[in-house]
């Protein structure tokens, strides 16, 4: 376990250094820079060059890179290029919102998709294909609806007509009730897209397990169908489900852009898109660095969960 952890940490350092270098140079390869991004319509080329000079953007790229690495080594993440705000502060402010949405989505998705997928598998196993088709069909339809569209429809229904949820307003991190109130609709929208995938994975996985010997043995012992299904079949089918959930958590961290935009939530997706659009090198570099860290950690966590779920897995 110790060697494994050390290995993972070494891997992490190499990954991060690679990512940082890659991002640094690709950001500078795409046309436009922070200055041309904010140029708009009424700034002349002469004015823009003066600003570039002041921000050190006219120095050779390699020097800028060395300077960046030097800052990184001393844990100085710097400020945004155009607004001079500390990057770490911006990320720290946005992160809790996106994490709340992502965790909420994972929980809601799992609560709906796992029983649904298991049920579909059971129905299919019992030869009652109609119900299986209906469940799979509904999941597919949910998956196909674009999230910007479902977001607006839900806003119209639940915010404008029913007044259950606000369309805008402050997000208070110190008040969980208020936070939940603001992120409930986004969680529903994102879950709708995730449920289909997870239900399908669950169905396939459970269906496979249902024809295994130990399920037949469990049945022959006279245990109830529910116990057989959830205790024995589902538990053994859990590995792919955990994998998918782990992956979708990672994806959700940047997949929340559209809902954050429509529901006016200042989360991480919003920040990254704004950073890209304004070519804010400092912001984008730090955010990608942070993503790389998170992904590596999630992979690590998923592996640990594997072991908990299935002791046969060795790490």
């Amino acid at each position: 376990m110790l060697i494994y952890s050390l290995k993972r940490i070494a891997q992490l350092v190499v990954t991060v250094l690679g990512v940082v270098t890659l991002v640094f140079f690709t950001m500078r390869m795409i046309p436009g820079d922070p200055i041309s991004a904010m140029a708009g319509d009424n700034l002349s080329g002469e004015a823009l060059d003066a600003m570039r000079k002041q921000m050190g953007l006219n120095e050779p790229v390699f020097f800028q890179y060395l300077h960046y690495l030097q800052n990184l080594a001393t844990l100085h993440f710097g400020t945004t290029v155009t607004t001079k705000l500390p990057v770490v502060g911006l990320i720290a402010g946005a992160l809790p919102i996106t994490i709340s949405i992502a965790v909420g989505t994972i929980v809601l998705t799992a609560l709906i998709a796992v029983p649904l997928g298991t049920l579909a598998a059971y129905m299919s196993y019992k030869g009652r294909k109609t119900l299986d088709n209906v469940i799979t069909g509904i999941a597919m339809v949910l998956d196909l609806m674009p999230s910007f569209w479902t977001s607006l429809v839900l806003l119209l229904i639940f915010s404008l007509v029913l007044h259950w949820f606000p369309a805008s307003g402050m997000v208070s991190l110190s008040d969980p009730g208020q936070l939940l109130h603001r992120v409930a609709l986004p969680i529903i929208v994102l879950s709708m897209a995730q449920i289909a995938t997870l239900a399908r994975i669950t169905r396939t996985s459970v269906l496979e397990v249902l024809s295994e010997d130990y399920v037949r043995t469990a049945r022959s012992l006279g245990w109830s169908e529910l116990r057989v299904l959830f205790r024995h079949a589902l538990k053994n089918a859990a590995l792919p489900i955990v994998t998918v959930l782990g992956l979708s958590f990672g994806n959700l961290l940047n997949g929340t852009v559209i809902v954050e935009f429509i529901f006016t939530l200042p989360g991480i997706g919003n920040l990254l898109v704004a950073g890209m659009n304004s070519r804010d090198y400092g912001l984008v570099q730090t955010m990608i660095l942070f993503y790389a860290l998170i992904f590596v950690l999630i992979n690590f966590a998923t592996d640990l969960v594997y072991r908990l779920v299935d002791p046969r897995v060795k790490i």
Partner: protein
Amino acid sequence: MSLSRRSVLKGGAALLGSSLVAPKAFAAAEKTLVIRFYDDPAGFDPATIFRIENENIAFNIFSGLTTYDSKTGQIVPDLAESWETPDNVTWTFHLRKGVQFQKNYGEFTSADVVYSLNRVMDEKTASPYRSELSGVDSITTPDPYTVVIKLKAANGGFLHTVANYHEGQMLKKEAVEAAGDQWRWQPVGTGPYYLDSIDVNSRIVLKRHEGYYKGPAPISTLDFHIIKDDATAAIALRNGEVDLVMRESNEEQLKTLKDAGFKMNHVDNYATSLKVFNLTDPILKDVRVRQAIAYAIDYDAISQAISPSLQAASYSMLMPWMEGVYSDKAPKYKYDPDKAKQLLTEAGYPNGFELKALNTSAQGVTEAMQLEINYLAAVGITETMELVDTPTYNKRRNDGDFMSAGRLLPAVNPDLILFSYYHPDNIAPKGLNGARYNNPELTTTLEAARAEKDPAKRAELYAKVQDIAMTDLPYMPTTVSNVYWPGKQNVTGVNINYLAQVNFWEVDIT
């Protein structure tokens, strides 16, 4: 001032607490207006500010020597009570006495004018607006309430340069130095509102400057909530979550809000959009080709079909409200496909050619673009859209790396528009003359107009400039845009000026 969300929350709580214990006499005057703000704020330092929504905040925090009348767009006194010039070269401004800076920074005097203008002119500030003051030769202060600005050459439009906009906004040295590199987030001016707190992710709170020289504004707190999506903003207004929507740019939502009985505050003809023709292009360098393109597209029909509230066809570079400069006599290109075909044949392109149009990919291929392509196809021109993201678009546009591209003319100073776009000194990449247009006759007329003292003669010269410009057509006006700020019926005084800004001192809740 810290920018964390937590501190803003604390501030909000403190604010709530203080309003609860406020004496009853003041209770009636404590009004709060909640306004939609449509993008992330980028700071409010006049020297480096950009984007209209940030400029609107600065417009209410700062003052200039002059400012723009909200309704007519004309220059009116602000911190300067009066001014005189014998020759458009030496300008003497008489400052208002007793004007107070916010946050106890003391009285505004001529020293602050010198500091503010010098700061923009200082190379170290790296202000994109530095060139606006390049014509200044010297600034002297005979006494604390008089400023004499001497120019290198006569400029009849100089009052625009010292207006409450960018380089013309007046600051206090001590406040700028106290804030250091966070000055853009801690602005101090002499305007009707000061910045109380800001959470860059979600909210900007302005408070009434009690010592404002025209008297305190009717509303005590302006609470700007960032709502980026236009549809969400409309729902927030209908839900009562906001009182006023800064810039609703969705035609469908405007219709819904109008039908729902909201007040549709708007300003028309705020700015014109252009097609910039690259005159170094072998095809576009022929004036007949440029005129043919102008005759071929019916922007009136396009505007009516797509967004009748938000835009209309444009036939001139300058707007009719730009009094003393705008001329109605310049050639206009009304839709005439036969004329277009005839001009193309004369130019040697009877079967048309391929016109590449550089555009931003922000909204994909819009309906307006599709209609434009169809109109051009009808006269044989194949228009190909090159869609790139905004930073790339801006870079290529500045580098002159395009055949045709778009521009919006937001400046309120008509003389500056003409100089920036038609004068050879401003040819891209240095300046905004992206067409690389150079007509000596226009240049000399324009320079003469700027120096001319007699308003009637000046108007005549400007008219000639517009005549030449619209005949040569390096820039083709396409549409003018209108700006909408829908709000509740009880929100009054929302007069959007020609910079698309609102002076909140005039706004009240009844």
